């Protein structure tokens, strides 16, 4: 049985413990009859009204079962009796719980708590030892994390005992981050914890040692691979498949979104009659049906990770069928002209030969006649 979380309010505690005991009895009887599924459902999941629903379910299932059973059997009668008792029990529990719930709402307030409210963010540590002037380190993040950045600097020629170090985000100094750094083991150390929860928290974080040395940590979601620079060409009335692919080395995103570029920015595309989206882990395809000239333009595919979205860009160009038809007809005409020219030339040459041969024949005949 799950342990109940301690909440403020003695009445609530009492109420809930009573509920617990009764429910436990309920589930035990169920288990005895082998109806383990209903029994496990009755186990407490958390606070709140979910339990009421579950109880409802169990009760309704019970009534359904009863109606389907035939009361003739001896064993059945036993079950009916048992089920009748259980029904009473469950009804009592229901009543109790509803009253408990009222107390719940009175003491705690209106909002329902999130799924894992106090579960800590995943911890991630990144550090770098700087020997020169500056360095940039890339950090790929997928989900919200509690990021600890550690900077170590070996120092310049003269090593003063104390320097002022500070942190900055995207070039702007973070407030209250200036500290005095002591020289320990010939090194200066700066350490700070950042809570990266959303896309706004991503960016370039830098630790600065008295303006002399700087380490930049660039926090970003995994980037798309090589972007396709040539547009996809398709025809009016046709349907086209616009693909987007993540490198195999990058992690799988939670989902994919597609956006269409318009005057104000990006507008999300919703699957429907005109658009259909097929997602396949690291690949996604947007299928556009019945293309019109308006469909030309930029499309963006976004791979959604816990902490942000990485964008890829594809350009679509819709042209009418007459565009390739024009050069085709030009080539066709050219071929016909060439063939005709060659054949005509041949015919005229053979006629010339024939008439020349004829002439020659006539001349020789004349000569013979003269002789």
């Amino acid at each position, binding site marked *: 049985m799950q342990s109940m979380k301690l909440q403020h309010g003695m009445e609530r505690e009492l109420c809930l413990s009573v509920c617990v005991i009764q429910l436990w009895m309920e589930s035990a009887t169920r288990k005895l009859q082998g109806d383990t599924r209903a029994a496990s459902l009755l186990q407490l999941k958390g606070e709140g009204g979910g339990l009421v629903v579950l109880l409802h379910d169990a009760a309704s299932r019970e009534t359904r079962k009863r109606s389907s059973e035939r009361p003739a059997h001896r064993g059945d009668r036993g079950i009916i009796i048992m089920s009748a008792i259980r029904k009473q029990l469950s009804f009592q529990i229901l009543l109790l719980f509803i009253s408990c719930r009222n107390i719940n709402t009175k003491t705690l307030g209106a909002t329902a708590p999130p799924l894992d409210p106090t579960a800590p963010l995943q911890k991630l540590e990144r550090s770098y030892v700087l020997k020169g002037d500056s360095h940039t380190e890339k950090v790929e993040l997928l989900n919200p994390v509690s990021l600890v950045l550690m900077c170590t600097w070996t120092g310049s020629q003269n090593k003063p005992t104390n320097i002022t170090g500070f942190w900055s985000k995207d070039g702007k100094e973070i407030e209250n981050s200036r500290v005095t750094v002591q020289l320990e083991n010939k090194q200066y150390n700066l350490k700070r914890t950042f809570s990266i929860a959303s896309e706004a928290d991503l960016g370039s974080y830098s630790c600065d040692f008295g303006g002399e040395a700087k380490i930049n940590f660039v926090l970003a979601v995994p980037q798309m691979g090589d972007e396709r620079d040539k547009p996809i*060409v398709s*025809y009016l009335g046709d349907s086209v498949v616009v693909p987007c692919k993540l490198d195999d080395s990058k992690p799988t995103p939670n989902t994919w979104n597609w956006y269409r570029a318009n005057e104000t920015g990006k507008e999300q595309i919703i699957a429907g009659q005109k658009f259909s989206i097929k997602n396949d882990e690291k690949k996604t395809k947007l299928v556009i049906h019945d293309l019109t000239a308006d469909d030309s333009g930029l499309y963006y595919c976004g791979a959604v990770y816990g902490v942000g979205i990485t964008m890829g860009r594809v350009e679509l160009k819709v042209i009418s069928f007459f565009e*390739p038809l024009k050069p*085709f007809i030009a*080539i*066709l005409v050219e071929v016909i002209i*060439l063939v005709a020219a*060659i054949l005509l030339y*041949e015919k005229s040459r053979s006629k010339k030969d024939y008439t020349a041969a004829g002439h020659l024949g006539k001349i020789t005949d004349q000569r013979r006649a003269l002789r």
Partner: protein
Amino acid sequence: MSPAPADPLEYKPLDGGWGWMVVIGAHISIGFAYATPKVLSIFFNEIQQDLGSSFSEIALISSIMLAAMYAGGPVSSAMVNRFGSRPIVMLGGLLCGVSMITASFGTSIIYLYFCIGVIGGCGLSLNLNASLIIISKYFLKRRPLANGLAMAGSPVFLCVLAPFNQYLLVNFGWRGSLLILGGLMLHCCVAGALMRPVPLPCKPPSYALEKTVEEQPNSGNTKLKKRFVKNAKKFLDFSLFKDRGFVIYLIGSIMFIFGAYAPIVFLSAYAKSQGVEEYSAAYLLSIMGFVDMFVRPGTGLIANSKLVRPRIQYFFSFALVFNGTCHLLCPLIKSYAFLVVYAVFFGIGFGMVFALIFECLMDLMGSQRFPRAVGLVTIIECFPMLLGPPAAGNYTLIMHSTYTDINQSKSAKHSSVNIEHALVLCS
């Protein structure tokens, strides 16, 4: 080296004049025949995305086209013997054009297999054989040069069509590009128009024959039919196998074709494995093609010279051995500069062999038997042509060896066979 058997109805070939226009026609025709299956692969990525099929299904289009082109050899030779080269090349050009135009409207992969693969392949096979046959009819003294110039069409069209296809793809998508490519292939009809039929020899004997045929109309018809059937059967003629030279040529060419295309397929992969970047690796193939373009007519010129012409079979064997040794030395190459040198020598070897491959067959068979011979050779060459590169690929998988090892074994195989070929041909 025993000369070709003397033909009874030998007329004097033109060896010039209109013959050079015929060479231009054959150049265009052969160029399209060899280059088209290779340059179509530029469109495959786009077609694959639009039709939603796997890459191997799309690559099958090229294989079907090649298979149809080679398998159609005997039929093409028979038709050329019956109707002459001109109508056949024009028909071939029309078929190719129609195949590409109808393919541009395709919505399924099976439709593309049929249009591009079968119809296109048949058109190309008609083109190829007819062009070779007409060269053998127009040239005797300058035949090696004519052959070299005509076969040079393949690298020229490859170098021209590849970037042109890219340009078309970017501007018109794959459908528009196929449409325009179909229009271009109609130029084979122009090539066909150039192939003026060779004037027939002495007319009187044929008139006499016709008269005797006309006198007996009834029995004449059935006789003609029987003769036609006999002729048709003749064109898949197995009596050619009695000729020892032909058999050796056939075996040699099977072995050569089996190994010849594998290096081309694997060259860029090998270069990448040696640490060369992708763009430079692709550049190697274009170097090879460019060198090939000049080597083929050059080889034809050399083969035509007084010194080499009588010993042309030896020259052919030398070209094969050169090709083989080139591949044998390949595994020793580690740096990019030497890979470029290898590509150049590969181009030279490849060009030499292909310039001479049909010339030697013409030399062996004579112009009367050449049509039947070339039909048989192309249909038999079909198998090693299709099996070669995949077999090489499987060899790497089975033996876990690298490209270098396949190279060595293949080249060793075919250079040894060809040395034997040369030696046997001497006797």
